C-alpha cells in the first residue's frame, strides 16, 4: 500500500521508494528511507498534501510523492 492509501493515525513501515534518484535523496534527507517508521497525521481535501511524522519530524508531501512511498501498516 502507498502512503496515500493508509488511514490517518496509521503507523507504518516504509518498504519501498518508487522514484528517481533525486526523489530518493530528498526523501532520505528528510528521514524517509526503507525501514523508517512513519505515522500518517493528516490529509487535505481533494488530493491535497499529506502530513506524516518520521521520528520527531513532521513532513508535508504532495499525494504524487505519497504514492511513490510504499508502506506496510503495522
Amino acid at each position, binding site marked *: 500500500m502507498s502512503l496515500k492509501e493508509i488511514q490517518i493515525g496509521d503507523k507504518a513501515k516504509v518498504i519501498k521508494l518508487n522514484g528517481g534518484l533525486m526523489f530518493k535523496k530528498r526523501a532520505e534527507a528528510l528521514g524517509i528511507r526503507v525501514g523508517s517508521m512513519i505515522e500518517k497525521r493528516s490529509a487535505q481535501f481533494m488530493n491535497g498534501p499529506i502530513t506524516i511524522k*518520521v521520528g520527531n*519530524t513532521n513532513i508535508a508531501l*504532495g499525494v504524487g510523492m505519497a504514492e511513490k512511498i510504499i508502506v506496510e501498516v503495522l
Partner: protein
Amino acid sequence: MNKKLTNKKLMLIGNPNVGKSAIFSRLTGVKVIVSNYHGTTVEYTKGYLKLGDDRMEIVDIPGIYSLEPTMKAEEIAVKIFEEAVKEKNENIFINVIDSTNLERNLNLTYELIKRDIPLIVVLNFWDEAGHTGVSINREKLENILGVPVITTCGITGEGIKSLVDNLHNAKRSNFISKRISKDITEKSKWEQIGEIIEQVQKLKHRHHTIGEKLSDFSIHPLSGLLVAIIVLGLSFSIIRLIGESLITYLLEPMFENYWTPVLLKISALFNGNGILHDILIGQVIDGKISYLDSMGMLSTGLFVPIAMILPYITAFYFVLSFLEDSGYLPRLGILVDNLMHKLGIHGLAIIPMLLGIGCNVPGALSTRMLETRREKFIASTLMAIAVPCMAQIAMIFGLLGRYGLKAIIIVFVVLFVVWVILGLLMNKFVKGTSPEIFTEIPPYRIPYFKSLLKKLWMRIVWFIKEAVPYVLLGVLIINILYVLHVIDFLGNLVGPIITGLMGLPKETVGALIVGFLRKDVAVGMLVPLGLSMKQMIISSVILTMYFPCIATFTVLLKELGTKDMVKSATIMILSTLIVGTILNLVL
C-alpha cells in the same frame, strides 16, 4: 590562542530549522553587524564574535540536509561551504544539530566528517529534547565522533559560553580512519548512523504533546481553515490597531507640535518663496504646512516615511515576526496548497507573498525557496503585480480612508482577483513543471520575545536606511520634473492611454514615473491632483501593478534573469492596461 583563532572564519552549518541563526545571533552578540551580501548566487549572513580585543568572522550558512544538494537554495549553501573549505586558514566548522532529530541530522555530520575539516558538533534544542523524551549521551557521542560535542539552547543562550571556550578544540575527526573499510557505500552509512544512535540515544515513549495537538488542529482541513481565518483576521486587526495608534497618538502630534514650528522658521528664512524653499518646504498656505500636499523634502519627504509608513511597517513586522517564529506559516502553506497549485505554485509560495506585503524585496529573494524556474517566475510575477508593499498599503489606507472602508476594500479585492486570474493563466501557459510540496514542518514554538524584538528592530532600521533616502530623492525628483515641465510633456505623450483608457488626468504620469523609485511617494503624489474616488481606486491599483519599484526590479532581474524579467514586465504592463480599462468601464 585568540590571535590564531581570529584569522579563521567560523562557519555555522546544519539542517534547516535547527536553530543556527539563534546561535549565530548569540555568538555575534548585541553589537552584531549582520549584512546580507548578495552577489549573483551567493547569499549569506555574516557577523563578528568578540574575542577579547579581537574579533572573529562568523558565517551563517543557509540550512542544508546534505552536501549533495537536492534544491536550488541548497546549491548556494553548498557553494558557500566549498569556498570556506578551500580557504587556506583552516576555517572552523560548527555543525549545529537539532537534538530532537539526531538520526536525521547525523547524515550531514557524517558527510562533514568525511571531508576532514576542523569540526565542532553542537547539540541544539537540548532542553526541548528532554521535554520530548529524547536523551542523548553527550560524552559517548563525543568519543565516537572524535570531535567536541557541546550542548546548547540557542534561544536562551545556554551553552554558548562553553561553545566559545571550546572553539580552539575544534578538530578533524578520526571516525572514518578508525573504521577498517574506508570505502563506504550509502547503505552502510545509514547502518553506521544507526549504530551510533543505538549507542548514544534513549527514547522514552511520549504521548502527543500540546504543540503536536495544536499542529494537527491547524493542519486539519476544517479546523485549519477556522484557525487560518482567526489568525489572519487577528493579524490584520493588530496591524491596524498598532499602526493607527502610533500615527494618531504619537507621530502626528509630534510632527504638528515640534516639527511644524521648525519648518515655519526655516520657511521664514527664505521669506517663504524661491526654488530652494519650494524644494525643501514646499507650499506654505496661510502659515500652515500641509504635510501631504506641500511636497517639500523636509515636510512631505519626512512625514510620509516616518509618520505614515513606519508605524505600519513596525506593526506589520511585529506580527509577521511572531508568525514566522511560531512556525505557523508552513502550516498555512499546506492548507492553501491545493488552491495555489491551480496558480502553478505550491502552498509554501504563500511565504514570499506574505513577505512581499512587508516589502517586495525580501519577498522576491524568498522565492528561492521554490524549486523550479517556472515556480519562481510565476511567484515573482504574481507578487510584483498584485502584492502591494506595506509602504504603499499604508499610503492607500491614509489616502483612501477618507472615502471609507469601501474604497480600500475594492482596491484589495481587485488585486486579489488579478492575482488569481493571472496565476490561472500563467499555470496554463508558462512552460515547465511545478513540483509537489515535500518539506519539513517545524514544530510550534513559543516565540522568544527578545529575539523577536531584535528582528523587528533590524527590520525597522533597514526600512529607515533603505526607504527614507529614496523617499527624499523621490520628492526632489518630483520637484525637478515639475520645474522642468517634464511631467507636462510626458503627460501629453501618454495622455491618450491614461486619460482615454483609464479615465485618469494626464498628471498621473508623474506618479507613474516616481512610482519606479518609490510607490509610496507615488501614491502621495495623487493627493494634489484632486481625484474622484473612482480615479483614486484605479490609480492605486495601476500603481501597484504596472511595474515594480527599482529596488524590487533589481532583485527580480538578478533572480529571474533578463529574458524572464522581460516576459514578466510584459505581463505587468499588459495586465495593467487591461485592468485599468476594465475598472474605468465598470466602476
